[in-house]
């Protein structure tokens, strides 16, 4: 990061729309860890996640004209691009498909890699993961990071389709309660 300059979100958006590469550098420095974290959680592979991160930032740079601050915050827009790009990659590659099947298989609930990336040592995250039940963690991560549908989740967790939304609601409410304590 290094630079002492800080930009507000609207300054940043204006700078990006004016094709200012300094603003873009600032955007990268501030948001790449979060977006890389998403790519890594989705893909579970640093090399692929790095490639996808590059794609994500190019999409942001080339598509900034389409960002509309009326519709939501810049970060939300970028997170959506990051998730969609990473999930598209996850679903498009046949060997990734194999990996996903492996994760969704018998070890989905037992697998910690689905929920925790081993290199994460953030205190807040540790707290969240301790207080969230494994099932809650898994249901959030399957939907959010793996792009699974309600139907897929019902089958994977072996619960009725009608209760997927309720479980998700409870999981997210629990997550938000924990986050409030951090």
């Amino acid at each position, binding site marked *: 990061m290094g630079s002492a300059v800080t930009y507000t979100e609207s300054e940043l958006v204006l700078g990006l729309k004016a094709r200012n590469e300094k603003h873009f550098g600032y955007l990268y420095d501030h948001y790449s860890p979060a977006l890389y974290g998403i790519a890594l959680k989705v893909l579970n592979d640093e090399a692929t*996640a790095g490639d996808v991160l590059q794609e994500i930032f190019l999409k942001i740079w080339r598509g900034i004209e389409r960002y509309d601050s009326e519709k939501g915050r810049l970060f939300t827009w970028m997170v959506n691009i990051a998730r969609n790009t990473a999930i598209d990659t996850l679903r498009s590659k046949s060997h990734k498909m*194999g990996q996903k099947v*492996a994760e969704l298989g018998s070890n989905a609930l037992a697998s910690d890699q689905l929920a925790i990336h081993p290199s994460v040592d953030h205190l807040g995250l540790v707290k969240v993961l301790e207080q969230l039940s494994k099932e809650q963690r898994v249901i959030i991560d399957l939907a959010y990071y793996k792009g699974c549908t*309600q139907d897929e989740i019902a*089958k994977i967790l072996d619960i009725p389709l009608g209760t997927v939304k309720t479980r998700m609601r409870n*999981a*997210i409410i629990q997550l938000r309660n924990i986050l409030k304590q951090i």
Partner: protein
Amino acid sequence: MDASRFISSGLIEAYVSGLATSNEIEELERGMAQYPEVRAAVDDCQLDMEQYVTLQAKTPKPEVKQNILRIIADEETAKENGTYVEETAIAFPNEEKVYVSSAWRWIAAAVFVALLGSLYMNYIYSGQINDYKGRYEALLSSQNSMASESNLYRTRLEQMEASMNIVKSPSMKAVKMSGTKPFPTALATVYWNQQSKEVFVMVNNLPEPAADKQYQLWAIVGGKPVDMGVFETGNKDELLHKMKSIDNAEMFAITLENKGGSPSPTLDQMYVAGKAS
């Protein structure tokens, strides 16, 4: 649905977690437009979800930034030069969508999950087998190509060695044949074994003949040309061409003749000639 029903329905959580179907998204977006408190509830939930995401942040390798900056700098330069080709039509089909199921994904998901157990095994094992098969085939083909290459070199080496042995023989006599007036740069050598009477010809420099032509070696015996046979020049590995044997000769010469050779030499097509003694 009123605002409180929206908030307690689980729709907001489904939307924020990416679980909502396209119908549910439409329904919620209508609610957000209609009730500010629904919109606020969605925003709050989204903020918390983003906090969860941010907790899992990880700094990427510095090369990624360098790559991106280089690509966009190149693009900007290209735009200034007017050579930039817009990629957006392919690059952003649906960047702002929330990841949702469509009809085919529903069907695919059902099939997919029903077959999960068997797919799991199939994917894992066939993936591995294909991987090994692919690697095995790659190795095999590279081994084959190395083997055939090594055969090729061995053949060449054997040919060279055979040629060397012929030339090395103490009873071998070399007859240098220089270019004639019309072909001053032409050069060839006859190796003539004085014991076995075998004759070999080596091309030092002769132009490649037309497809219907061949070089023919002649020995001049008692002032008369004697046919020593024709030879090909195409194979550069074949240094020495074995010709007919002859007991004695005053001269050797090479002419270019129609394929298969002529009974008597075409004198204006004589490329080289050399005295044998």
